């Protein structure tokens, strides 16, 4: 993944106006679909009542494991709870876990990377060795280690995923920071006598953080999967909360009889992550000044 540098990074992405824009999107159905789906997921996360008429935790044991039908769009689970409602209400857990952990990782990574880029040789070496160490094990193992220390639960899982993502972000920020630090406009600003703090705040940080923003967006999908995986293992969001990974874990006991319970949560996760991926790539392509094919 290339990182743009210098003036190109400063060039604002202009708004395209008029019919051209609509025509452009019409020829890219994938992008439109992804955007629409993601919008749907966001609505589900923010205002689930708009999409689902039933409560996600309203049990009705007499109607357990019903097939999809008029009363229940996607059928019911083993306690008679409406699967569609649970799916819709579950969006907020998966989405918030993904967003919060990536945002946290972004913040931590930005700080870490900036320290490495701007703090001098020793800080650079130490920070990067630290990053090497963190990146030397698989992210899920790192997350598991954090959960082992802190205990299960959504807050701790957020921290765990953030810990596993931050070093990667730090690396990118560092590289970009080094490039920007040595660029002409920063040299100019320093020569003009601006204080170091002002230089960092006004010139370095904005140019370093835009590629980070793209990276963060592209990693939200990975965070969502990581959060769902940890919940699937029983370490993240706890039932009765209908987080999608937790729903999949509960569906395992019914694979023989009602495997539909296992289809929809997984599909939801996959489609959400694909949509984020498509949009993220578009963002990256825009940022790098070319159109993705």
């Amino acid at each position, binding site marked *: 993944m290339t990182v743009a540098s210098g003036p190109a990074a400063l060039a604002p992405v202009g708004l395209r106006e008029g019919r051209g824009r609509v025509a452009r999107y019409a020829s890219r159905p994938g992008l439109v679909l992804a955007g629409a789906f993601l919008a749907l997921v966001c609505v589900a996360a923010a205002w689930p009542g708009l999409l689902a008429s039933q409560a996600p*935790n*309203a*049990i009705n*044991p*007499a109607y*357990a*494991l019903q097939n999809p039908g008029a009363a229940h769009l996607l059928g019911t689970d*083993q*306690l*008679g709870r409406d699967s569609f409602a649970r799916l819709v209400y579950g969006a907020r857990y998966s989405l918030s876990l993904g967003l919060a952990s990536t945002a946290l990782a972004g913040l931590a990574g930005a700080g870490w990377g900036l320290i490495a880029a701007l703090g001098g040789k020793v800080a650079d070496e130490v920070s990067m060795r630290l990053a090497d160490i963190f990146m030397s094990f698989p992210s899920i193992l790192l997350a598991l280690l954090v959960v082992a220390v802190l205990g*299960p*639960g959504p807050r701790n899982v957020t921290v765990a995923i953030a810990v596993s993502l931050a070093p990667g972000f730090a690396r990118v920020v560092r590289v970009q920071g080094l490039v920007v630090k040595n660029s002409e406009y920063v040299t100019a600003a320093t020569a003009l006598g601006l204080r170091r703090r002002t230089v960092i705040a006004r010139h370095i940080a904005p140019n370093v953080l835009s590629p980070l923003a793209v990276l963060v967006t592209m990693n939200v999908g990975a965070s969502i999967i990581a959060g769902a995986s940890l919940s699937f293992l*029983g*370490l993240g969001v*706890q*039932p*009765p909360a209908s987080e999608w990974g937790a729903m999949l874990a*509960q569906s*395992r*006991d*019914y*694979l*023989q*009889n009602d495997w539909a319970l296992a289809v929809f949560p997984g599909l939801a996760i996959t489609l959400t992550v694909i949509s984020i991926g498509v949009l993220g790539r578009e963002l990256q392509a825009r940022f790098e000044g070319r159109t993705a094919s």
Partner: protein
Amino acid sequence: MSARKQAVAGGGPVRQDHAGGRARPTRPILAAAALLLAVGPVAACTGSAAATAAGKSSSPVSGGTFTYAIDSAQLTLDPGVSVSAVTGFIDRNIFDSLVVQTGPGSFGPWLANRWTVSPDGKTYTFYLRSGVKFQDGTPFTAAAVKATLDHIANPASKSAYAISLLGPYVGATVVNALTVQIHLSSAFSPFLQALSTPFLGIQSPVELAKPAADYTPVGTGPFTFVSWPQHQDVNLVRNPGYTSPPSNAAHRGIAYLSALHFDEVSEDATRYGALTSGQVQGIEDVPPIDVKTLEQTPGFYTQSDFLPGLNYMLFFNTTSGPLADVLVRQALSASVDVPALVQGLYFGQFKVAEGPLSPDTADWSDSASAALTSYDPAKAVKLLEEAGWTTIDAAGYRVKDGQQLNLVWPYPAALNRQQRDVLAQGIQAYAKKVGINIERPTVDLGTLVSDFLAGKFDIADAAFARPSPDGLRFAFDSTQTYAKGGANVVGLDSAQVDGWLNAATATSSPAVAATAYANVQKYVLANAYVLPLYTPSLISGYTSAVHGISYDAQAYPQFYDAWLSS
């Protein structure tokens, strides 16, 4: 010997009654009375057609490895320490007991040929079988019996169950190599029944003398322990030197099966799939939703039986927190539609429980269930308001003096089975409707133990299978605290209840015991110390190649007489 042993033709499982628990009645009249008493709660034995239809009498074949899938991991294989019934039934194959329970109140010789009891009920003398060896070669003598019982009674062993079975055990004396005297501080009628359980199975004194970290289970039983990889699966191999089957076994001599594997498969669907695909020959806990399907599938059969003992129920911590108030406890009881939940989740395979004891246990009191606060949400709301929980906050939960009505119910995921976590979600949902917030934090076992010891919980849940109403003492006697290896987590400390329980264990009159136990059940229900949920049924599934599985008094399968046809 049991008067009611049902044999099923063609190698189906042999059933024994297990509604028992009184000590040996000394007179024929009492014996008849005991039999009559046990007539009522006879277990309904159900099995699929395949079991009874195997009309051709096949003779046992020696050899073969039997793999049985269990649904939870074992914490320890030391029967004197473990509280898990599944560990008990695995250990049943490794250890023999002094006596075997052959009927509701009758016991037969096993490692002991005969025994006498002193008139005051405080001294038992056992005359032991000769020529028996432990699997490590040590000869079986009175010293081994003493070592086993002392090991259980020793606080350093941290026995979580067997110590309560021992009751008022004081010590044992080795009279000679084959005679041992056991001393109790008071008469204790469940003692023989206790001695018949695998938890008091006789262990090799040489093994017990080793440091706890090096412990492996060594007994005199038909199968020898081989390995316990990753503390999940348990591998046993036939003991070629086995000479001590119990008096009611179907054959003498060594076991037919050459090896036994207990594989842990905790996911229901996977365990069931392992049976139907032929990867294992038997499974524990056939998922209730699949029982009917399995019974109709050719090549398989099921055996199910309701477990005697304490039902699966919620225990309420009455020493602190909102549940110290009996009105709140009764309200919680009234808020949950237990029958709907149990029927819905278990498809009729588990019985809805209406009291602390399973109906298949002796001295189960039918009338006590009238004292249970059953489902009545309006009544629940009334009780809560009467208790002062009148305000409802934005989240829908009740508030009093600025405190939300929060109950903590720790969830040890490692011990989960029979969809109990899903049942809990159902209970949470019902409680929420009347404004009670039940939280289920996931905890590891170490934290669970600390929480119980510190009283940092409001609700606990458990079931204890045992063919004796003595389980009531285990759970409600004031001396049976959790710290001392008991199950009295509710914090019940009532001289009245203790009096009833002591009367029941000291007496040899079944009528006195029945009344005393009935009183305990009524009291416990009236004061809502527990919320009974269901009577578990041990539903085992087998391939048709499996024959000769018998069931002990505790309704757990036994493999000594089992054999595999090709």
